[in-house]
C-alpha cells in the first residue's frame, strides 16, 4: 500500500492502518444505518414503493425510458452542435486575422463565464416559449440545446486551441516548409492531431452536457429528472424515484468516464498525436506559468515532453 506520500508501513503503522480500516468501515456502517433508519421512519423502505421499479413495465416505458431518451436526445444534439461551434470558434481564435481572433475570443470568453441556466431561462421565457419556436412542443428542447451548445461549444473551442498549442512547434514548421499555407497547415496538419488529442476530453465534456440537460427541468423540458415528480405523483414514491434516477445518471456518467480513459490510453499507446492527450477541459484559470501552455491535469512537462504522473502514482484507480 505504498504510494508517493507514504513510506512502506512498518509493524506499528500496519497496526494503525488496521485500526483506521475498522474505523472507516464503522463510519460507513453508521452512515448507512442512519440513512436507512431515517428512511424506515418515514416509511420509505416499504416494498410497495420500490416494487413498481421491478415489476411495472409501464413505469419504465412511460416515464424512465421516455425521459432518458429525451435526455440523451438533448445531450446528443448539444454535443454535435457544440463540436461544430467549438471547431469554428477554436479555429477563429487561432486565425492570423486580428479581427476574427478578437471576435472569437470575446464570444468564447463571454459564453464560458455566463451560467448555462441563465441562458436557458432567458432563451425559453424570453423567446422560444412565448413565440413557440420552432413549435409549441419543441421550444423547451430548442432552448436546452442552444444554451448547452453556446456554453459547451465555447469550452470545446478552448480545447481545440489548447490542443493545437500542445503540439510540438516542429509540426507547424514542417507544414510551412513543405509549402502549405498558414491556414492549410492548420487544417491538414495541426487540427487533425489536436482533435485526436482532445477526444477523451470531448467524451468527458459529454458527461457535463448529460448532467446539465437536467437543468431543463426549470424550463419544463421533459427529461429524465422531470419524470421523478411524475412518477412521484403517479405511484406516490418520490424518494425511490429520485434514488433510481440518480443511480441511472451515476451509472451512465461513470461508464462514459471509463470510455474516456480507455480512449485516452489507446491514443497514448498508439502515438496517434504528436502532442499531449487532453483529458479534461481547460480551466478558466490557467495553471501554467508559460503563456500559451495548456493546462493539462495530472501531467507535467519533464525534459521537454509531457509525462503522465498519474501512471506512476498508485492511488489513481481505486
Amino acid at each position, binding site marked *: *500500500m505504498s*504510494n*508517493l*506520500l*507514504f*513510506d512502506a508501513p512498518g509493524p506499528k503503522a500496519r497496526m494503525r*492502518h488496521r485500526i*483506521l*480500516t475498522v474505523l*472507516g*468501515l464503522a*463510519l*460507513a456502517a453508521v452512515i448507512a444505518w442512519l440513512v436507512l433508519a*431515517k*428512511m424506515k*421512519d*418515514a416509511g*420509505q423502505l416499504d416494498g410497495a414503493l420500490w416494487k413498481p421499479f421491478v415489476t411495472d413495465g409501464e413505469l419504465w416505458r412511460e416515464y424512465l425510458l421516455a425521459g432518458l431518451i429525451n435526455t440523451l436526445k438533448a445531450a446528443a444534439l448539444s454535443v454535435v452542435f457544440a463540436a461544430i461551434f467549438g471547431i469554428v470558434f477554436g479555429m477563429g481564435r487561432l486565425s492570423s486575422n486580428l479581427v476574427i481572433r478578437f471576435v472569437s475570443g470575446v464570444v468564447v470568453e*463571454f459564453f464560458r*463565464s*455566463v*451560467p*448555462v*441556466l*441563465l441562458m436557458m431561462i*432567458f432563451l425559453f*421565457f*424570453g*423567446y422560444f416559449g412565448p413565440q413557440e419556436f420552432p413549435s409549441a412542443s419543441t421550444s423547451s428542447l430548442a432552448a436546452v440545446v442552444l444554451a448547452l451548445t453556446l456554453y459547451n461549444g465555447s469550452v470545446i473551442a478552448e480545447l481545440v486551441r489548447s490542443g493545437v498549442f500542445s503540439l510540438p512547434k516542429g509540426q507547424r514548421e514542417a507544414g510551412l516548409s513543405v509549402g502549405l499555407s498558414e491556414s492549410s497547415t492548420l487544417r491538414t496538419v495541426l487540427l487533425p492531431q489536436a482533435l485526436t488529442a482532445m477526444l477523451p476530453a470531448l467524451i468527458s465534456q459529454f458527461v457535463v452536457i448529460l*448532467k446539465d440537460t*437536467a437543468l431543463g*427541468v*426549470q424550463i419544463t423540458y421533459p427529461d429524465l*429528472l422531470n419524470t*421523478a*415528480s411524475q412518477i*412521484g405523483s403517479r405511484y406516490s414514491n*418520490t*424518494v425511490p424515484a*429520485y434514488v433510481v*434516477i*440518480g443511480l441511472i*445518471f*451515476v451509472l451512465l*456518467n*461513470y461508464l462514459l468516464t471509463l470510455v474516456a480513459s480507455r480512449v485516452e490510453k489507446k491514443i497514448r499507446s498508439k502515438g496517434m498525436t504528436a502532442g499531449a492527450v487532453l483529458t479534461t477541459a481547460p*480551466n*478558466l*484559470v*490557467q*495553471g*501554467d506559468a508559460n503563456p500559451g501552455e495548456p*493546462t493539462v*491535469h495530472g501531467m*507535467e512537462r519533464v525534459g521537454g515532453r509531457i509525462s503522465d*504522473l498519474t501512471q*506512476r*502514482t498508485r*492511488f489513481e484507480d*481505486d
Partner: protein
Amino acid sequence: MGDLFENYDIIGAFWVTIQLSVLGAVGALVIGTIVAVMRVSPVGVLRILGAGYVNIFRNTPLTLLMFFSVAGMAFILGLTLSENLSTNAYRWAVIALSVYHAGFVAEALRSGVNTIPAGQAEAARAIGLTFGQSMREVLLPQAFRGAIAPLGSTLIALIKNTTVAAVILGTTKPEAAGMLQVVTENEGASLATFGLFAIGFVVLTLPIGVLFTRLSQKMAVKR
C-alpha cells in the same frame, strides 16, 4: 433600465448569489479536504470510501441534488432546516452546493498531490526527515501550490452553479437566475436585461479568475 432596479431587487438577488457562493465554497472546502485526505490515505477502506464519494457526487446532476434535498429530504423524510419554507430551501441549497462541489475540491487537491515528482518524497526520506517533517516541509507546500489553479476553476464553477438553486428557491427570495426569470416573464425578453445579468456574473467570476491565475503563477513550483 433605471425602472428595472426600482421595480426588482436585482442587487438583492445578486447578494443571495454571493451568499450562496461563499457559504457553498466554505462547505465544499471542508468536506472536500476530508474526502481528499481519505483518497490519498494509505488505508484501503478509506480510499474506497473517498473514491465512492467523488464518483457518486461528481456524476449526479446538481439539479437532482437540489430537488432531492427539498422534495425528498425535507418534505418526505422530514429533515427540515427551518420552519420558513424559503429559508429551508435556502439552507438546503447551500448543503447541496457544498456536497456537490466537495467532490471537485477533493479532485483538485488530489491533482495537487499528483504534481509532485516522486523524487521529492524520496529525497525527503533520504535526508532523514520524519514522516511529519517531510509532509510539512516538502510535500504539502508543493501539493497546495499545485492545487491552486484547479481550486480556482472549481470556485468559478461553484459561483455559476449557484443559479441551479433557482429550481428550489422560488420567487420570494430569488437569486440571480430566478430573478432573471421573474423579470423576463413580466417585462418580456430584452437583450439588455440578459446582458445586465450576464455582466453581473462576469464581474463576480472575472476577478477570481485573474486572482487565481496570478496566484498560481506566483506560487508555481519551478521544476
